């Protein structure tokens, strides 16, 4: 017998295996599913179709410069933390053809890229990563100019968020006030219990995807357990970044000796900018055929750690690692706020985990704060 659909903001409980029915509903509505799955020793985000594709029981040991995935045998699908991928690679894609141009009868004819974008369902979006999408919405959609390529991807996603039930040593979402619980902007949000998912309905579309899933309204007991799960994660978070007056503190300390100290360790590899869910800098590449009658422009992710990034005729504006690390950190934590009204950091900790030499921005900020020059 057909069951009514839950209303928006309702909480329902489903046995874990029934999440497959949600997946099937999404696929039947033409969404391709993107979610966490284990590949080459890491949980990455890729196309999935079945519950078995999720990283059941996998947990990552994370520390500055360290990520080791371990099978724990636990019965949780979403306890893996965050991996090197973020949703950025699907919304602000690493490589994008901007347009092609062809010389016809001596004239250049421009052809915009209007590739069809498939609707996608993001499975297991963390609170920090959902905030990162919100940050990118500000960057790409809220200003004088909008990025139509971001827009076309962004408007076609379904978000199944996952509240965190545990935290990792590099997490600091509580400092950035982005998690561990999602607070909005999702279609469905699940909290994982040992034998069930508590699911909060965030949109009509979300509710629709619970069709034929035999759900029960969440009881006070279920909600209590869900809240406890999030509290567990919150309690586990040890890392902190004090945001008090942070932009001014950094601006006032642009000549702090700590920049030299971190420059001696930083390899300027750009890993942090690649794994960061909000770093958005790009460059363009131009290609053409041998007769120079057909050309293409491609936008690719760039990094402020690349020396050429600041090249102007006559040299580079930021020739030293000191100046490039300072650019990254002051942009992320200070000038981002001036530019977009929000910090560029969501506290996911990826830049700490994936830094090959284990540089930890929270430690760098602490060191500057402890010995402020002004």
């Amino acid at each position, binding site marked *: 017998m057909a069951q009514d659909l839950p209303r928006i903001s309702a909480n329902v409980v489903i046995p874990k295996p029934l999440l497959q029915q949600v997946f099937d509903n999404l696929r039947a509505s033409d969404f391709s599913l993107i979610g966490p799955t284990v590949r080459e020793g890491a949980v990455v985000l890729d196309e999935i179709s079945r519950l078995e594709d999720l990283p059941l029981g996998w947990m990552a040991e994370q520390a500055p410069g360290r990520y080791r995935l371990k099978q724990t045998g636990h019965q949780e699908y979403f306890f893996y933390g965050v991996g090197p991928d973020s949703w950025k690679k699907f919304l602000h894609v690493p490589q994008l053809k901007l347009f092609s141009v062809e010389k016809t009868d001596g004239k250049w004819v421009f052809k915009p890229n209007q590739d069809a974008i498939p609707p996608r369902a993001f499975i297991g979006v963390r609170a920090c990563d959902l905030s990162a999408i919100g940050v990118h*919405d500000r960057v790409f959609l809220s200003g004088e100019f909008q990025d139509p390529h971001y827009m076309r991807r962004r408007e076609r996603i379904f978000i199944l968020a996952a509240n965190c039930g545990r935290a990792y040593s590099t997490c600091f979402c509580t400092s950035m006030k982005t998690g561990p619980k999602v607070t909005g902007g999702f279609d469905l949000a699940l909290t994982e219990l040992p034998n069930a998912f508590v699911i909060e309905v965030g949109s009509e579309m979300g509710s629709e995807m619970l069709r034929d899933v035999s759900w029960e309204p969440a009881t006070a007991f279920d909600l209590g357990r869900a809240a406890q799960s999030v509290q567990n994660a919150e309690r586990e978070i040890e890392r902190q970044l004090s945001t008090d007056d942070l932009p001014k503190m950094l601006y006032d300390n642009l000549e702090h000796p700590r920049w030299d100290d971190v420059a001696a360790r930083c390899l300027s590899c750009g890993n942090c900018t690649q794994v960061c869910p909000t770093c958005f800098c790009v460059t363009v590449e131009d290609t053409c055929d041998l007769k120079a009658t057909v050309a293409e*422009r491609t936008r690719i992710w760039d990094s402020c750690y690349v020396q050429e990034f600041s090249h102007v005729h006559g040299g580079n504006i930021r020739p030293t690692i000191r100046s490039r690390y300072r650019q990254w950190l002051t942009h992320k934590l200070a000038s981002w706020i001036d530019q977009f009204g929000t910090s560029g950091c969501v506290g996911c900790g990826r830049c700490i985990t994936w830094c090959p030499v284990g540089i930890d921005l929270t430690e760098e900020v602490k060191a500057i704060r402890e010995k402020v020059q002004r």
Partner: protein
Amino acid sequence: MSLAPTPIESHMMPDAMLPDPATIEDIQPEAEGISTFSLVFSDPARASTFHFRPGQFNMLYLPGFGEVAISISSNPSLPRVVGHTIRYAGSVTRALGRLKVGDMLGVRGPYGSAWPLEKALGKNLVIVAGGIGLAPLRPALYAILRRREDFGRVVLLCGARTPADLLYTDEYAHWQAGGIELHITVDLADENWKGLVGVVPALFYRIRVDPKQTLVMTCGPEIMMRFVIYEALARRIPKESIFLSMERNMKCAIGFCGHCQFGPTFICKDGPVLTFAAIEPFFGKEDF
């Protein structure tokens, strides 16, 4: 603050990264390795509706080579033909230098902030240009000459490395006749040079300024602008009255590529024309 994603409405959005084709109508050599390219948009509607404010720039795109930000250097009252004074400095500008009249390229723009001409009405202006820095100031000179009586005293302090590097020298007489006071200097003279020798900021010593009534507009090498600011501040001109045009690497001109950031400022959309007051904490910081 947890930032909830913005609800999105689907609608057609213009693609700001897509250039419009334009034809080179004229190439005017200005100095060694510097020419002014006059462009006309191929689409008559685009050509007839294009307009710009002095100080703004366009992105010029050469298929297969790339794109480069170039200040508009022509008369803002005649925007159908858009002038760009280009120094052949990098791979794209050198490739542009090989083009001929009648060739086509892609243009996006205009972008960026403008010189504060409205704010300067009734005031005195000290315009300070070094080398090709005169190019983005030339549209301002056109605009001033058009309504010269609306401004007070207008002084142009201008210089280049050598006499051969001075731009728009044919127009000096016209500017002077229009009521612009000219002081020209070169870093290095040749045997025919009868004018001043020395750096541009030193020209401040040849004029007297009323600090409360004067606006400074400057464009040139950053080191020159640093000393222009120094001289202006020494004459008690407030930092809010000092305007400079900054240059940084740009890939998009619309605030998305991140390359042109200067502290909180995107040079492409908040600049290129900025008050010294707005960038003082960062200006002149080593490698910033």
